[in-house]
């Protein structure tokens, strides 16, 4: 059984193909990287998989069941979670509440039970609070637990998104450029976090420009160029692939 | 931050400056007779409330300089209801409970009057309304009186005139404000009594800017012999202009809702030949000297226009004049200002000559005006002229 299967997926924006006839498979329990030059369609692909965009053609399968066109929250409830390249943090809430939001679907968040503050709600909320504080610690935000989200620096917000995604206890975690904008020390920390997540049995798909990070932790790499698949395989094979090198030589990125 | 503080402080200073310009309420010495008032001084009926308030202010000042009533000064306590019934209810509670007024004059529009009627009834305070609807005095409520002719009477007066002219089929275009809508309903009810058929029945919003569409529809209706426009504010002036623009060849009838010179000013030449029922006030100078109403209306017109400019008089302000003097005369007759005494005396008003006509009240009639108090007028040469 495959966890995620993308079949002949296409997305057009006003006649421009952002993704074209793309097919690939993601096996459970791997760290899977998607790389490609800017504008290759990586983020669009994430948006298609997580239901933020509806594909123009093709199908997405989760656990071999078609999920194309389902709303993001339905996919989240089916076990998918993600972070964003352009930060999507609720700046009107505290940092911890942002992570607590990730627990939402596990908390039986009824309107009436919330209105009456039933004992079950209070208890589950308290447990969730502890768990989420633990998660913040896990991603390295241990000393920001009581901060307001809008007081955190950029790098912390990136990690806050990861903590939030983890709070949802996904089976499939999609990380959109988790290391972008971070310095090398912070990147190493993120690297460690991702590996620890994967060790817990969560399948990770990441879009990343930092080749050192990608090649270091990925089991499998997919290369996109102009919305199409350029190559796919183990990191060492990708590194040697002449098409990939040709595509990348045109850009400023260099292989480490 | 500093700049924002400066701006905010500037604004507060400006607001406070207004306190000095707009003086606070003048609380007269104890022992004054307190006249409470709520009028639509702003809002959609402001051209009613504005002259009404000016009239009350002017005459209360005059009465006070002449020594007041029964040796006591009058004190006016006024609130702007904006013609919103909810505001009116709040202000009347304030007038009754906080200001403890002796009598209430007010309610420029029918909606706000109807809204406060249960309150004055319960509090047993005499109340003279300045609004048009027949519902205010029919059925009669013990504490409620009113001075203007009812909309039903206006319909009757107009239809009576039409009958005399041999008009049987008319088109109607009414404003959707309280006044227009209420009169539209009354006219529909009484039209049959005069053998008049309403073939086209159109409406327009109180703030509409163009009524040619509705009038075109009326013009396209077969057999229309006249057009009637119940409404007030700038609407009737636009209707009148559009009416001329479309080249109607039948006469136009307006209601007493346009009974001020302002209407002629706004509609301009288009108003020529328009007919309407109104109080004699509008033609004060043209009344024969034998007319018993003449001295009253001439005096009011002069006093108001001396203070607020030539051509500024309207029958609306006249309603307030009538209410004030009816109340003052009642107080003088009974030498009292207590609620029950004044009320009883108001009900006994007989032969009071006001701007609207001669008023004789009774326990069954809290208006006391006959159809004859209305005159049919026509616009001629940019001024009102008596038709009959």
């Amino acid at each position, binding site marked *: 059984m495959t966890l995620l299967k993308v079949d002949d997926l296409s997305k057009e924006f006003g006649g421009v193909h952002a993704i074209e006839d793309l097919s690939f498979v993601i096996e459970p329990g791997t760290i899977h990287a998607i790389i490609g030059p800017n504008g290759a369609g990586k983020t669009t692909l994430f948006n298609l998989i997580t239901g933020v965009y509806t594909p123009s053609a093709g199908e997405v399968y989760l656990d071999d069941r078609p999920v194309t066109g389902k709303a993001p929250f339905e996919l989240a409830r089916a076990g998918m979670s993600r972070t964003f390249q352009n930060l999507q943090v609720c700046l009107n809430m505290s940092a911890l509440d942002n992570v607590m939001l990730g627990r939402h679907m596990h908390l039986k968040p009824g309107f009436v039970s919330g209105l009456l503050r039933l004992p079950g709600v209070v208890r589950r909320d308290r447990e969730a609070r502890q768990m989420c504080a633990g998660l913040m610690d896990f991603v390295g935000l241990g000393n920001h637990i009581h901060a307001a989200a809008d007081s955190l620096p950029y790098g912390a917000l990136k990690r806050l998104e990861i903590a939030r995604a983890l709070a949802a206890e996904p089976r499939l975690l999609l990380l959109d450029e988790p290391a972008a904008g971070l310095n090398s020390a912070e990147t190493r920390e993120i690297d460690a976090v991702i590996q620890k997540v994967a060790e817990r049995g969560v399948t990770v798909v990441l879009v990343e420009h930092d080749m050192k990070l990608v090649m270091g932790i990925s089991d499998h790499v997919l290369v996109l160029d102009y919305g199409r698949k350029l190559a796919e395989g183990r990191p060492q094979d990708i590194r040697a692939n002449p098409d990939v090198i040709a595509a990348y030589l045109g850009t400023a990125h260099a292989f480490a | 931050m500093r700049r924002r503080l400066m701006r905010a402080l500037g604004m507060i200073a400006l607001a406070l400056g207004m306190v000095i310009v707009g003086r606070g309420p003048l609380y007269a010495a104890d022992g004054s007779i307190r006249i409470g008032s709520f009028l639509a001084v702003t809002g959609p009926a402001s051209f009613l409330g504005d002259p009404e308030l000016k009239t009350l202010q002017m005459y209360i000042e005059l009465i006070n300089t002449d020594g007041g009533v029964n040796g006591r000064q009058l004190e006016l306590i006024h609130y702007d209801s904006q013609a919103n019934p909810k505001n009116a209810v709040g202000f009347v509670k304030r007038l009754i409970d906080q200001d403890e007024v002796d009598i209430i004059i007010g309610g420029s529009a029918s909606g706000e009057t109807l809204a406060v009627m249960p309150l004055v009834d319960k509090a047993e305070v005499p109340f003279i309304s300045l609004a048009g609807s027949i519902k205010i005095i029919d059925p009669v409520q013990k504490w409620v009186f009113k001075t203007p002719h009812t909309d039903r009477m206006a319909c009757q007066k107009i239809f009576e005139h039409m009958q005399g002219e041999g008009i049987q089929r008319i088109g109607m275009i009414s404003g959707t404000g309280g006044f227009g809508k209420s009169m539209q309903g009354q006219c529909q009810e009484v039209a049959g009594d005069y053998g008049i058929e309403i073939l086209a029945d159109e409406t327009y919003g109180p703030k509409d800017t163009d009524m040619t569409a509705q009038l075109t529809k009326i013009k396209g209706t077969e057999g229309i012999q006249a057009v009637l426009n119940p409404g007030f504010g*700038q609407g009737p002036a636009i209707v009148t202009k559009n009416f001329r623009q479309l080249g109607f060849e039948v006469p136009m009838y307006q209601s007493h809702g346009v009974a001020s010179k302002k209407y002629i000013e706004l509609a301009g030449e288009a108003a020529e030949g328009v007919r309407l029922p109104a109080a004699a006030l509008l033609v004060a100078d043209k009344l024969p000297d034998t007319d018993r109403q003449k001295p009253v209306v001439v005096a009011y017109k002069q006093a108001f226009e001396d203070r607020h400019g030539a051509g500024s008089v309207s029958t609306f302000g006249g309603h307030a004049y009538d209410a004030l003097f009816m109340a003052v005369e009642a107080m003088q007759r009974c030498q009292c200002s207590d609620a029950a005494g004044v009320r009883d005396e108001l009900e006994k008003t007989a032969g009071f000559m006001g701007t609207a006509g001669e008023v004789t009240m009774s326990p069954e009639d809290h208006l006391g005006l006959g159809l004859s108090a209305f005159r049919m007028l026509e616009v001629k040469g940019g001024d009102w002229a008596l038709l009959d």
Partner: protein
Amino acid sequence: MLAELVQFLFAGLTAGAIYALVGLGFGLIYNASHVINFAQGEFVMLGGMTTVFAAAAGLPLAAAVAVAILVTVAAGLALEMVAVPTRNASVVTLIIITIGASISYRGAAQAFFDKQFHTLPSFSGEDPIDFLGAAILPQTLWVLGITVLIVIALQLFFHRTLLGKAVLATSHNRLAARLVGINVQLVLLLSFGLSAALGAIAGVLITPITSTNFEVGIMLGLKGFCAAILGGLGSGVGAVVGGLLVGLIEAFGAGYISSEYKDAMAFGIILLVLFFMPSGLFGKRTTERV
């Protein structure tokens, strides 16, 4: 039948042209500052009322109009200086500030002018012109003609002049505009001033037809907002098309269906359009970037 149709058409176009001018005013300010200015209708009122009072004070009509435009522009600039620099203000807060401004302008007009209705003489008489059997007032042609001229002038300003291009650039990206050396503060003042001037002109144009008082701005502002939204916020073409559409729906609705429900029909159609085109007819369709 044709005469009727043409009559409705001109009724709709006249009202629609005024809505369009007010709608354009909304768009100008929105583009430059992302503020929805609910005091836009008050500019129309100030234009009409100031002209009336300046003329009554003895000025010739042309001079009175000039004074009115100046007064209204001053009111617009004052609003810019007060409202726009408010930092950390959410969209709703800014809306409330402009509503406060509209109440203030109305209150000032009521206190310093008066509460009566006033009118102005038509620019070229009141004799209707016969056109395909319909009777058209000369003032209607003035309204339509000047609206067309203003739309053309705005197009030229925005696409042919450096200053106009600077305004456009600021509307697209204020920070980038600042970086390339555009005086953003000037652009903001210009937009508010221009928008106020548009309102004042609309007020002068329509006063001979509808008359004016201190409260006429409320409904015109609301209809202008409808025009701007229906057309798509920030789109000049949109505001014009939106304004004309609202005017035409009202006129044809009143003429052919029900005069009581003509306004409801206009609102109903705007709702329907928004359900299928959430950014209005000509609004930028943005895909969420995440």
